[in-house]
């Protein structure tokens, strides 16, 4: 867009925006939301819903704000009587066939039709004594149901599949008030990014089978997080109800994933609700592991680490936060450490309409963060060194049975684990950690963007973040230094060992993250300061 600025007044507030900005976007800067349905900042604008018609001084007709660009000195009125009357009538027209499904519709509470009708609609309908148009619910395939009766034909779903996913599998069929969204009878909506149509749908017409009737929108707590599915680092919201994760949704980040997440990431939340968790620190007492408290477990861990001479193998989860990876590694400073994370692989699935956005082959969220912290992805090499190792430290590693069995060949195993895993019961200590859904932390995505995720649900029992456990033990072994008490502090203090992070704080990251200025060099090399 041109750098030339244009001044426009919207509902009395004057803003300066780049030439070529639409009125609807300029209005956002003036703090005015122009009600709309078919417009979406990540889709081409067809201007069909007619909700965004605004009054523009000197224009003979109301203008659609989503496609009309600003002009110097333009005066726009969004809340004037003619504009409100037009919106009221659009809402009335939409409601004549839209069923009163709110009591049984999943969208209630987060429905743009409800919102604008409450704000500006008529109190009652004048469409009386006429039948509403009826079409039966259709199963579009894997996760999406289409309820044609509720559809307001905004066509966001059609445009998403055609222009962003580059797969025109949805269409508008028929004409006039007989129109509905169609899918080719032989096909299913199984594109790897197709779940986004459910989020895009302003009403409850396209709905998720996975979420069907699970929870009411107003019962949900919504927390900003990062998808732990792959190295893309899509920004998400974790929706919980009574501390149970019920849904993941995209969170807007124009530099990473715009408004979308892939279906794989979207579906992968059930592990966050596992009940089979370790809830207390367990330390070896003869032939068995005994529950104890942190006051006992921490010094024990510290002493155990101090006593280790010889080879250490550190096996971590690809979902571990940068803070946890960093502090566990720091705990082992001065030892001969081989540190690795397991990186499962999967097919890449790009979203063609958004640059640099894909479900990535490397199915962990923090590969680049792990590398910064001194870990590699050479898992097999690390596993090979387990036999005869003085200590194998596990940071919530995901072991298959063969790998778990191999642990017996090491001299000692200390496990930081979220899951209560019988195969680890030969360990010297088994300490409960929180998952990424239960703690604050950061990941570094494949573009070197450090992004925060926020605690979305409580950790069970006495489980603590990995960084906390490690830092407490480290403080025991480094008297006078003190352990960080918050994730923010843990992050800020990583800079002394990871130069790329030097000087960065959570405040610098905000909720959209920040790109580090150069690719991670091998651990230990001097790196430039963060941008």
């Amino acid at each position, binding site marked *: 867009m041109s750098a030339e600025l244009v001044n426009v007044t919207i509902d009395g507030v004057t803003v300066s925006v780049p030439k070529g900005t639409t009125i609807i976007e300029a209005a956002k800067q003036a703090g005015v939301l122009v009600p709309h349905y078919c417009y979406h900042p990540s889709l081409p604008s067809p201007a069909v819903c007619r909700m965004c018609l605004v009054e523009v001084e000197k224009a003979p007709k109301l203008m659609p704000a989503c496609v009309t660009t600003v002009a110097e000195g333009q005066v726009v009125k969004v809340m004037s009587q003619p504009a409100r009357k037009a919106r009221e009538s659009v809402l009335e027209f939409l409601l004549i066939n839209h069923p009163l499904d709110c009591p049984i519709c999943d969208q209630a509470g987060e429905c743009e039709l409800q919102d604008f009708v409450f704000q500006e609609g008529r109190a009652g309908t004048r469409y009386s004594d006429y039948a509403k148009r009826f079409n039966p619910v259709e199963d579009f395939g894997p996760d999406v149901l289409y309820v044609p009766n509720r559809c307001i034909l905004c066509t966001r779903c059609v445009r998403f599949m055609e222009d962003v996913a580059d797969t*025109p599998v949805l*269409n*508008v069929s028929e*004409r006039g008030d007989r129109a509905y969204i169609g899918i*080719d*009878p032989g096909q299913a909506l199984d594109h790897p990014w197709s779940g986004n149509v459910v989020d895009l749908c302003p009403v409850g017409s396209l709905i998720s089978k996975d979420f069907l009737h699970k929870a009411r929108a107003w019962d949900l707590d919504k927390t900003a997080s990062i998808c732990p599915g792959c190295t893309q680092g899509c920004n998400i919201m974790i929706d919980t109800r009574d501390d149970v994760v019920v849904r993941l949704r995209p969170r807007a980040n124009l530099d990473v994933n715009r408004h979308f997440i892939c279906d794989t990431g979207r579906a992968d939340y059930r592990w966050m609700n596992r009940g089979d968790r370790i809830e207390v620190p367990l330390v070896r007492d003869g032939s068995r592991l005994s529950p104890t408290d942190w006051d006992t477990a921490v010094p024990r861990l510290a002493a155990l680490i101090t006593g280790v001479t010889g080879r250490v193998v550190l096996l971590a989860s690809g979902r571990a936060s940068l803070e946890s990876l960093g502090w566990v590694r720091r705990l082992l400073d001065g030892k001969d450490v081989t540190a690795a994370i397991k990186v499962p692989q999967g097919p890449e699935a790009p979203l063609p309409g958004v640059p640099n956005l894909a479900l990535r082959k490397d199915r962990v969220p923090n590969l680049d963060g792990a590398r910064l912290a001194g870990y590699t992805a050479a898992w097999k090499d690390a596993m090979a060194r387990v036999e005869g190792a003085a200590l194998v430290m596990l940071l919530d590693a995901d072991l298959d049975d063969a790998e778990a069995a191999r642990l017996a060949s090491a001299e000692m195993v200390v496990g930081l684990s979220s899951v209560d895993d019988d195969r680890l019961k030969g360990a010297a200590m088994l300490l409960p950690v929180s998952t990424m859904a239960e703690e604050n932390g950061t990941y570094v995505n494949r573009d070197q963007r450090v992004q925060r995720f926020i605690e979305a649900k409580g950790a069970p029992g006495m489980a603590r973040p990995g960084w906390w456990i490690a830092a407490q033990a480290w403080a025991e072994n480094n008297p006078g230094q003190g352990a960080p008490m918050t994730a923010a502090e843990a992050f800020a203090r990583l800079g002394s060992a990871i130069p790329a992070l030097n000087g960065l704080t959570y405040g610098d990251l905000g909720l959209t993250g920040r790109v580090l200025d150069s690719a991670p060099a091998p651990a230990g090399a001097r790196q430039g300061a963060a941008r």
Partner: protein
Amino acid sequence: MSGGAGTGHGAEGEHQPVFVGGARDKLEALFPRFPTRQACLLPALWIVQEERGWISPGAMAEVASLLGLTPAYVRGVVTFYTMYHTHPVGRHFIQVCTTSPCHLCGSDDVVKALLKETGCGELGATSPDGRFTVIEVECLGACGFATPILVDNDFIESTSPERVPGILAGYR
């Protein structure tokens, strides 16, 4: 040119390709006349309808693959236009205009006569012998020659109830 329609079609079994031989030649002759393949969609659909009498899902898929489109896209276009049939129809398809100018000139009586003579009974239905389907359509653009009807591709002006039996006789 009267188009044959609905001969021996029911629900489609396995789709037999339409665009072979002459039909294929017709389609290929279209390609140089437009800068995109997609622009050949409406003409291609007309070829299908001329060959088969209606446009089946299999035919839509065939057209889609020949033009580099998706079947869903083709279906969206087919269902937009009134003249494309997505179901088999009677051997002769009759369209009668009932928009205001023709209504003023007695199209109601023409409709009644057609329904009676064909045995269709009601608009949109196919006659029991499968010969005729009669539908009402919007303005056919012959308002000064009320009431116009289309029987397949034959445009017949100034149809009156009296003329109906004679007209239909030509299609028995």
